Every structure is written in structure tokens, then in C-alpha cells.
């Protein structure tokens, strides 16, 4: 048995869709080959409709692949779905898996029964999750009355109650405020440290990727456009951070600082924006260099936008195929749908 927790080989999924009167084939996932080892934390990113959810559904046995194969936790997702369910926990950010009219505690009790936990396992794990996710204040409140932040924490606890080896999170922080996001990320980092859980998460939030993931997969029109770490991703696409400084008095443009590029000035130079590459210079060094030239009152650092990163990756992967394997396939990248007779 291979040690991988997810092993996809040429995983492909097509949908027949009705487009007016004609039927078309839409390729949602196109020859995805990827291997994820136990304990990894992987960010799976891509634009809406790039094939992220379809991939997750194939990994968990909800959808049957059109072609290719996938092994999750050493099992074949579709025929071994029920055994796999005991080892995988999935959180869908926008779809509740709790019983909306039952108190959170009751939902946990039912899920413990569903996963055949012993009384000891149930009480230990529930206590751990309640403490780590700070659920104590609303355990007896029906799910429908929870705030979004509370509900998401309850959803995560519900998906992790049976201590799955692999946790898949589909947009876990969508719609959450900064504090709730932060708490959830801290919990996931801790869970991974304590139990060696493998994390696979889809997100639109760069913060999630930066704080949770040590590997990034970018998917574009169903194809893998990037596989590597975050610095590598920034290097590949040249995504820059931006230092915004508010100065005490109007100043000339701060050009010519090492490792940075002047983007714009506002209010006669009171506010200036400097792009810099995190590989070349730290924000602190750049700030020191700026402070030599002008009196800085306030500052913010803008992170590269994930949408922007993805856009750049897409542009790069279209002008230059990501892998030789892909280049040899029939070209269908942007328009991966082919007409089919009605």
C-alpha cells in the first residue's frame, strides 16, 4: 500500500450540460494527477468553477470520475464510501451538515452515534473540541439561532468529531469576521499539530493559505496550473506585497529604494505606495529605508490578493503549459468544452 493519503491519477470529470437546445460536454476536472502525503496541509485554490468542488466530491465518493482514478486514505471513494467516511471529515462552508432545529450538543450526540464512537471517545473528543473551538457558550442553542461564526465553529467540530485522518474544508472562512477567521485558523493549526491530521482546503482567502498551508495547488479549468509552496508561488507569478506609508509632510516620490518600486503618490506625496518583493527585502528593512528619507506617521502592508495570484498563474499557464504531460494533451485549456451532437 502506498503511504499517500490522496493519490489522484489522471482524474477527470465531465458533465453533460444543456446549452439551449444543444448538449455540451463540460470538463470540470481534466486529468488531475496529484499525490498528498499524510500530515500535509494543502491549499487548493482556483477561480469559481475551476473544478475545486468537483474534485472534492470525487475524493469523497459523492461523484464518480469520468476517467482516471483516485485513492483516498487507501480506499476507493465510490465503492468504499462508507469505510472512507469514517476517516474523512468534510466542512462545506456554505452548506450546513448540522440539524438546524437541534441544539449543537444534540447534533454532536447523533454524529457520535453515526460514527459509532464509544462513550469515552465521544466525551473526550467533544470536550476537546468544545474547549479548542470555544463552543461552551452555545452548546444548548439550536443551530438555526447561531451566528455565522458560531455555526462555522460548530460545523468544523461536527466534521472532526470522529477524529478523521483527512479533513477537507471547502471555503471554511467565507463570510467570517477577522477574529473568527483567526480563531478557526489557530484551531486548525493546533489540530494538525496534536493529531497529525492532513488538511485540504479550498479558499479565496490568502490569509488562510499563508497561515495554514505549506503546499498550494492551483487549478485552472480543471487542470493543475501550479503545485508548490507559497514563496514559490509568489516567485512564479511575481506577486508583490505593497507598503503604504502616510508621511508627515508632502514629499517627493520615494523612488530608487533597493528592492522596491514606487507605485503611486496621493495628496502631493502625503501617502505613497511602494511595491516590494518579499524574497528580496523585508517590510521592516524597506520601512527603515523609507524612514531615512521621510517622517513616517502610519503604515499598512497589503498582501498579494489571491484572485490576483490566480489570475497571474492562469495567464502564465496558458502562455506556457505547466507540465510536459499537459502540453501533449489536445489543446483545450480555456475552452475545455466540446460540442456534442444533441
Amino acid at each position: 500500500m502506498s503511504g499517500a493519503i490522496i493519490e489522484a491519477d489522471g482524474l477527470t470529470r465531465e458533465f453533460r450540460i444543456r446549452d439551449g437546445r444543444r448538449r455540451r460536454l463540460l470538463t470540470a476536472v481534466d486529468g488531475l494527477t496529484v499525490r498528498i502525503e499524510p500530515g500535509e496541509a494543502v491549499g487548493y485554490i482556483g477561480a469559481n468553477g475551476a473544478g475545486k468542488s468537483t474534485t472534492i466530491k470525487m475524493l469523497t465518493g459523492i461523484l464518480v470520475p469520468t476517467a482516471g482514478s483516485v485513492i483516498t486514505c487507501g480506499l476507493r471513494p465510490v465503492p468504499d464510501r462508507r469505510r472512507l467516511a469514517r476517516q474523512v471529515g468534510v466542512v462545506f462552508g456554505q452548506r450546513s451538515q448540522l440539524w438546524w432545529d437541534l441544539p449543537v450538543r444534540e447534533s454532536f450526540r447523533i454524529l457520535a452515534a453515526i460514527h459509532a464512537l464509544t462513550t469515552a471517545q465521544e466525551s473526550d473528543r467533544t470536550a476537546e473540541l468544545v474547549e479548542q473551538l470555544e463552543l461552551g457558550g452555545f452548546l444548548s442553542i439550536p443551530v438555526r439561532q447561531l451566528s455565522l461564526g458560531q455555526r462555522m465553529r460548530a460545523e468544523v467540530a461536527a466534521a472532526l468529531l470522529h477524529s478523521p485522518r483527512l479533513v477537507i474544508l471547502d471555503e471554511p472562512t467565507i463570510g467570517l469576521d477577522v477574529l473568527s477567521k483567526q480563531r478557526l485558523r489557530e484551531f486548525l493549526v493546533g489540530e494538525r499539530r496534536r493529531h497529525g491530521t492532513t488538511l485540504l482546503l479550498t479558499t479565496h482567502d490568502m490569509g488562510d493559505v499563508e497561515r495554514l498551508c505549506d503546499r498550494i495547488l492551483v487549478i485552472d479549468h480543471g487542470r493543475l496550473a501550479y503545485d508548490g509552496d507559497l514563496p514559490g508561488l509568489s516567485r512564479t507569478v511575481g506577486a508583490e506585497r505593497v507598503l503604504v506609508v502616510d508621511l508627515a509632510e508632502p514629499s517627493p516620490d520615494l523612488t530608487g529604494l533597493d528592492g522596491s518600486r514606487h507605485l503611486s503618490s496621493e495628496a502631493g506625496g502625503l501617502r505613497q505606495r511602494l511595491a516590494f518583493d518579499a524574497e528580496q527585502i523585508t517590510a521592516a528593512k524597506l520601512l527603515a529605508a523609507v524612514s531615512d528619507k521621510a517622517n513616517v506617521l502610519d503604515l499598512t502592508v497589503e498582501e498579494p490578493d489571491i484572485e490576483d495570484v490566480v489570475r497571474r498563474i492562469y495567464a502564465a499557464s496558458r502562455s506556457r503549459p505547466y507540465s510536459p504531460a499537459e502540453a501533449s494533451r489536445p489543446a483545450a485549456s480555456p475552452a475545455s468544452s466540446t460540442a456534442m451532437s444533441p
Partner: protein
Amino acid sequence: MASASTFDKGAVQATGLRERLRPYRAVLASRARSQRAYRTSFALDLGSSLLVGLVELAEVWVIFSNVTALGGMHFNQILLVFGMADLAFSLADLSFGHLDTLPDFLRAGTLDAFYLRPQPILLQLITSDISLRRLARAAVGAAAMGIGLATAGVSWGPRTVALLVIGLASGYATFAAMFVWAAGLQFFLLDGAEMTNAFVYGGRYAASQPASVWSRPLKLIFGFFFPMAFTAYLPAVTMLGLPGPDWLPTWLGWCAPAAAVWSWVMGLLCWRWGLRHYQGGGG
């Protein structure tokens, strides 16, 4: 497998039936509790369900205030057919009726949650709810059946009791299978609740009528394909020793279990087909 979680091993050790049923019991118990939690609301539900049952019974009575016999049966005998059909249907509706909420799950994408739990999808769906208010409806059916049994001239004996038990159990199973059958079709007709309701509730209505009044095409459809005649009419005819109509001889009442098996085979095939479609084409 070396990498199996400790919980998986725990599940393997506890293979008893009790343990296997624990997930379903946990859900059903909490559903039942939550329905009874709001007493006024539950009482109103029971009341309205009772009213519907009584209205349907009144319909039979209205017909018989104008005629003395229908399809070779008198009012008391029809009462027996109506009661058996209604009791069996109400109990099936109580335990399987919520399968018609499948389109809601499909539209909201929440069926996926069932895939992430280690139980068969259909069993999870069946045990995802229980409609206790249908008990009122079942009570109307039981009362009608009781009056029918007492007044229709049934000769009591082991044979009658056996027919009654076989008839009710098979009727329950047949109606339950109709809900599964309809649910399987929902995968193809996302807005098909109306269509499948028509044949589930139409079937129930057909079941409470004497099949002798049906035309031949109706006998084919509701006598055999959707075997509604087997849920109440045929067992009652056999019990009462009445001559059966064309194509439906008296002894067929004993074959009610075969009708239930046929319905389940078709229902499960339909369900399987629907599930395949969901995993393969929909989603």
C-alpha cells in the same frame, strides 16, 4: 489495515445489531422529541391530520348514502377495505413519507452530507425523520377497519387473522416501497414532487376503492404494476370469501407478500438508478 483509525477498529469490534442500529435510533429519537417539544403545535398537527382522515372517510360514506353496493361490496365491507388501506398507508407515510423531501436536499446540495456518513444513503434518508402526526390518520384507518371487521360478516378464525396480518404487513411494505420508488424518480425530475405525489397519493386512493369497479387498463396499472389492489382490497375479498372480479381471483389475497416484494424490487432498482444518475450525471 495498519493505518485504520482507532475508531474504525472500535466500530469493527462492536458489530452487534444494537450497535448497527444506534445511528438510526439516535436521529429518530431526537426527531420524535423535537416534534413533541411544542405541545400546542403537535396537537394542532395531530388534529389536522385527523380531520383529513375523517374527510376521506366521509367521502366513502357520502357515496354509500346514494348506493347500497359498489363493485359488489356493501358499505361495511368497503369500510374494511378503506380501513386496511388507510392504516397501512398512514404507517408507511409516518415512516417513509418524508422521502418526498428529497428534491429539497437535491436543490440545496445537502444530500452530499449523507454521503459523508458511514451508512447507506437510503437508510439514512428513511430514518432522517418521522412524522408522528400521521398517527392520527392511522387511528382513523384503524377505527374504520375495526368497524368493518365487526360488521362486515367476517368469520373469525386463524385464516382471517393470518390474512389480516399478511394484508396489513404487505400493504405497509407496498406503500413504503412506493415512496422509495417515487424518491428514485426524483433524481431525474427535480421538480417532480407533484408528479410522484400524484402516483403515490393516487395509489393510496385507488387502494381504498374496490378494484372491481376499475376498467381493464386501471386493473393492469393499479392491480399489478403498482399493486395497490393487493394492499387492502384483495386480502379483504379473500377474508370475506367474495367472488373476485375479472383478472383478480379471490385467492390472490394470499399473494399480497409477492406484491410487496415486487414493489420493493422495483423501488430499490429505481432508487439505485437514481443514485447512479446523481453520482454519474448530476451534482
